C-alpha cells in the first residue's frame, strides 16, 4: 500500500495511519469508507443523469403522436436501459454510498468491517454499466425487453447482445451482495459500547434490514438471469413450454426478487426521513420502536406479495385473493410510518431548511404513490390498471419522489458534514422548487392517461392521449434540467465554496455524526465513543 503522504487538514490523526496516495490511485486503491461513499454517490449521480438522458429521449418521442425521433426498437432499448440504470445504477448505489459514509459515523465505528471488499464492491460497478451501455452500440442493439426482461421476449426473441446484459446484471448483483455483507458485519460487530439494538439510529436499522433483503433476493435475480442465459444460448427450456418449461415461471422467480427489491429501494429512504424530520421539528422521532417493527414487518411481508405484479397472467382465484390480501396488509406498517412522521411534526418547533422541504415533499408524494399502490392491490381493478401509465405513475411516485427525493434530502442534510461547508442556499431553493413543480407536471398526468387506457412501453399512442403526453414531456424536460442545478450546487460544495459548517450543522440534529468536526476527518472514532 501507500507511503504516508500526509495532507494538511488531516493533522489530528495518529501516526500509524496509512494515508491515501493522491490523485487517481487514491480513489482506485482506497479502503476508506468516506472515500468509497463519495465514489458511490458520484457514480450514482452520473448514472442518474445517464438514465435521465434516456428518459429525455423517451419523452421527446412521446411529445406528440406519430414516430418522430427514434424507431420503436430503439425506443424499447431506451425504456429498458433507463429502468436498469435507475434501479441498479442510481438508486441502489446512492443508498450504498450513504451507508458507507454514514453507518460507521452513526455507530461510532472507525470504518466498515471489510474495507478491501468495500473497494472491490464499488469498483466492479462501473464495469457492469460500461458493459450494459456498450451493448447499445452493438448490431441489433442492447436489451429491448423491458427492465423486467420477461421470457421468452428476452430469450428466443432477444437481440444477440443479451449475454452482455446477463453478465452486467451478474456483476451488479455481486456488488450489491458484497455491500450488504459489509453493512451487516459492520452493524453487528462494530457498534460503539452501549449502543444496544434499540438505540441504533433509524438509518442504521433500515439499512440492516435492507441488507438482509439484498442477501436474500440478489441470488434469486442471479439465478433467473442465468436461466435466461442458458435458455437463449444453451438450449435449456426453463421458460419454454415446448421443452416442458413455463414462461410464467420466469415472472414468479423474477418478482420473488423484484418485490423485495422495491423495498430495498425504499427502506433506507424511510431511515433518512426519520432522521431529518425530528431534526427540523426539534422533537424526538415519534414511535421509534414501532418504526423498527414496521420496517421489519414490511421486509417480511415483501416476500409474500410478489404475484401482485402478475394478476393478469392467469392464476387460480385462491392465489389472486391471497396476493391481494397480503398486498393490502403492507399498507398497515407503511401507514404507521407515515403517521409517526406526522406525529413527530405535531407540536414540534419546525423550520423549513432544504432537507426538511425534501422530507416533507417525500412524505406527501410517497404517500400518494402508496395510495395508488393500494388501489393497484385490488385485483379486479388491477386488471384495468395493469401495464398502463397508471402503474408508471405509481412507481415513479414511490421511486422518484420517494427514493430519489429522500436521497436528495440526505445529500442536503449531510453535505455540510461531508464537505465542511454549507451548500449554496439559493441554488438549493431553485433546485427544490423547480424539481417539486416539474416532477408533478411530469408524473401526475400519467395517472389520467393510464386510467383513460394508455398502455405503458409504447412509442406511439392514440390521439386522445396527446394533450396530457405533451404536458408530461414538458414536465420531464423541466425535471431533467432542474437536476443540472443540483449538479452545479454539488460541484460548488465539493470545491468547498460556501459558509463553513459547524460540527452540529443543524441546531436540532442529534447523533454521533454531529459530534465530530465538519468536514468529518478522514478517520473518525479511532477510539469508540461511549453511549450513555
Amino acid at each position, binding site marked *: 500500500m501507500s507511503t504516508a503522504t500526509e495532507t494538511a487538514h488531516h493533522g489530528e490523526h495518529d501516526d500509524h495511519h496509512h494515508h491515501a496516495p493522491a490523485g487517481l490511485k487514491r480513489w482506485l486503491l482506497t479502503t476508506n469508507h468516506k472515500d468509497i461513499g463519495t465514489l458511490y454517490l458520484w457514480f450514482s449521480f452520473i448514472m442518474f443523469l445517464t438514465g435521465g438522458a434516456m428518459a429525455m429521449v423517451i419523452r421527446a418521442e412521446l411529445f406528440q*403522436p*406519430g414516430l418522430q425521433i427514434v424507431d*420503436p*426498437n430503439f425506443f424499447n432499448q431506451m425504456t429498458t436501459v433507463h429502468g436498469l440504470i435507475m434501479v441498479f445504477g442510481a438508486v441502489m448505489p446512492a443508498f450504498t454510498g450513504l451507508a458507507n459514509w454514514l453507518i460507521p459515523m452513526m455507530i461510532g465505528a472507525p470504518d466498515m468491517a471489510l474495507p478491501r471488499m468495500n473497494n472491490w464492491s464499488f469498483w466492479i460497478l462501473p464495469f457492469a454499466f460500461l458493459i450494459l451501455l456498450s451493448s447499445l452500440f452493438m448490431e*441489433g442493439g442492447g436489451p*429491448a425487453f423491458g427492465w423486467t426482461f420477461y421470457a421468452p*421476449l428476452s430469450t428466443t*426473441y432477444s*437481440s*444477440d447482445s443479451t449475454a452482455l446484459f446477463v453478465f452486467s446484471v451478474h456483476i451488479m448483483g455481486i456488488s450489491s451482495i458484497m455491500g450488504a455483507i459489509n453493512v451487516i458485519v459492520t452493524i453487528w460487530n462494530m457498534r460503539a459500547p452501549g449502543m444496544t439494538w434499540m438505540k441504533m439510529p433509524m438509518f442504521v436499522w433500515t439499512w440492516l434490514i435492507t441488507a438482509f433483503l439484498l442477501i436474500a433476493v440478489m441470488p434469486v435475480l442471479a439465478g433467473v438471469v442465468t436461466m435466461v442465459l442458458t435458455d437463449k444460448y444453451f438450449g435449456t427450456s426453463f421458460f*419454454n*413450454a415446448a421443452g416442458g418449461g*413455463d*414462461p*410464467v415461471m420466469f415472472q414468479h422467480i423474477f418478482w420473488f426478487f423484484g418485490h423485495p427489491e422495491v423495498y430495498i429501494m425504499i427502506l433506507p429512504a424511510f431511515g433518512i426521513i426519520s432522521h431529518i424530520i425530528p431534526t427540523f421539528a*426539534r*422533537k*424526538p422521532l*415519534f*414511535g421509534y*420502536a*414501532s418504526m423498527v417493527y414496521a420496517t421489519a414487518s414490511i421486509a417480511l411481508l415483501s416476500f409474500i406479495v410478489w404475484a401482485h405484479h402478475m394478476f*393478469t397472467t*392467469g392464476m387460480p*382465484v385462491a392465489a*389472486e*385473493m391471497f396476493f*391481494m*390480501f397480503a398486498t*393490502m396488509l403492507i399498507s398497515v406498517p407503511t*401507514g*404507521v410510518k407515515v403517521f409517526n412522521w*406526522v406525529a*413527530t*411534526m*405535531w*407540536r414540534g*418547533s*419546525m423550520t*423549513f431548511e432544504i432537507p426538511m422541504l425534501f422530507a416533507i415533499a417525500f412524505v406527501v408524494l410517497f*404517500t400518494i404513490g402508496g*395510495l395508488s399502490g393500494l388501489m393497484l392491490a*385490488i*385485483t*379486479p381493478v388491477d*386488471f*384495468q390498471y*395493469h*401495464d*398502463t401509465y397508471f402503474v408508471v405513475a405509481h412507481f415513479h411516485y414511490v421511486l422518484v419522489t420517494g427514493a430519489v427525493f429522500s436521497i436528495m434530502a440526505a445529500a442536503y442534510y449531510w453535505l455540510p458534514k461531508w464537505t465542511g461547508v454549507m451548500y449554496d442556499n439559493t441554488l438549493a431553493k431553485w433546485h427544490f422548487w423547480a424539481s417539486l413543480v416539474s416532477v408533478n407536471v411530469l408524473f401526475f398526468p400519467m395517472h389520467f392517461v393510464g386510467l*383513460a387506457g394508455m*398502455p405503458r*412501453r*409504447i*412509442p*406511439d399512442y*392514440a*390521439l*386522445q*392521449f396527446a394533450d396530457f403526453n405533451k404536458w408530461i414531456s414538458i414536465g420531464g424536460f423541466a425535471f431533467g434540467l432542474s437536476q443540472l442545478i443540483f449538479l452545479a450546487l454539488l460541484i460548488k460544495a465539493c470545491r468547498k465554496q460556501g459558509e463553513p459548517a459547524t460540527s452540529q450543522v443543524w441546531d436540532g440534529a442529534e447523533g454521533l455524526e454531529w459530534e465530530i468536526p465538519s468536514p468529518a476527518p478522514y478517520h473518525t472514532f479511532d477510539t469508540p465513543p461511549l453511549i450513555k
Partner: protein
Amino acid sequence: MNLIKKTMAAVLTFFFSMSIWAQTIDASQRSDLNLRAGVTEISNEVYDLHMLMFMVCVGIAVVVFGVMFVSMYLHRKSRGVKPANFHESVKVEIAWTVIPFIILIAMAFPAAKTLIAMEDTSEADLTILVTGSQWKWNYRYMDSGIEYFSNLATQREQINNKFEKGENYLLEVDRPLVIPTGQKVRFLITSDDVIHSWWVPDFAVKKDANPGFINEAWTNVIEPGVYRGQCAELCGKDHGFMPIVVIAKSPDDYAQWKADEISAIETAKAEEERLLSMNMSMDDLMANGQKIYLAKCAACHMPNGEGLPGVFPAIKGSDLALNDRAGHIDILLNGRTGTAMQAFSKQLTLSEIAAVITFQRNAWGNNTGDIVQAAEVHAYANGQ
C-alpha cells in the same frame, strides 16, 4: 384535542360530500381523465370498486395531509413555538394500526366478490380462441370454424407523419372481432411467440396470452357497439401497434354476419382452387407481392428488405431468396421455430404466398427472375 376533533369532523364531511359528488357523475360517459365504466355488468362493478378505492384513498390523504399541513402552519419556530417532547403513545399507535386494518377488511369483501365473478368462465354461450403473435391477433370461433387474423389498419404514412392522423389512429384493425350482445362469450387466450395481453377496457377484460398455455376470460356485452383496446404486455418492436377492435352485434345481426362469413369462406376456397390452376404474370405477382410484403413482412424485414441487423435478417441479398427456392417456400409456409419467423400458411392464401415469394426474389436488386406460382406452393405444401 378539541382542534383535532373539529378537523376530523370537517374532513369527514368533506369526504362524505365527495363520495356523493362522485356518484352523480354519469358512469357511462367516456372520460379522458378516469377509468371507463364500460359496457358490461362486470366492468361497471369494477368501475364502482375503482371509485370506492379512489375515494377511500382521497379520504386518507385528506386526513393525513390535513393534519400535517395544520401542524406545519401552527407548529413552526417562527411563531415562537417551543417543541413538545412526547415521543410515543401506545393508545394512538394501536389506534392507527387497527383502524386501517378495519378499513382494509371492509374493502376486501366487495373486491373478492367481483373477482370471483370475473373468474367464473363456466356456461359460456360462445367460445372464441384468441391467439396473439408478433404483432397481430388471430380469432377462431370454436363453434363454426370461422378464423381470421386482425391487423393494425392505420397506414404507415400516418405513423410516419406523412398523412394526417385519423380519428381512430392506432386503434383500428382490418378485421375486427365480432361477438353477439347479451350472450356470455368465453375467450381462450394464448400466443404463438412471446407474451401478449388481450385488453378491452370497456369489458374490463385483460388477460395475458402466454405461449404454450391457455388462459380464460369472459364477457357479456349489453349494448351493440364498437369497442377498442390494445395489447398490454411488451411484446417486442411493434408492441404499440397491435390494437384490438371488437364489434358487438345484436344476436340477429350476429347470426347474419356468421352466415355471411361461412359463405365467404366457401367462396374463397373456390377462388383458391381456380387460382391454383392459373398462371399469373410476373407483373401481377410483383404488384400483388409488394402489397402483401408491406402489410405482413415489412414490420420485421423492413420495407427495403434489409431487416434490422442483429434482430431480423435481411431478405435483400440473402442466400434463401437468391438460391434456395424450396427453402424459401418452406420458411413462408412453416415459419422457423425458435425465431420470430411465423408460419404464414394460415395467414395467407397459396397465391398470396406465391406472389410474395416472387416479389422477394425479384425486388431490391435480388433480380433472380424466378416466378413462383400458387401451384408450386401447393405442391410443396403437400409434400411433393
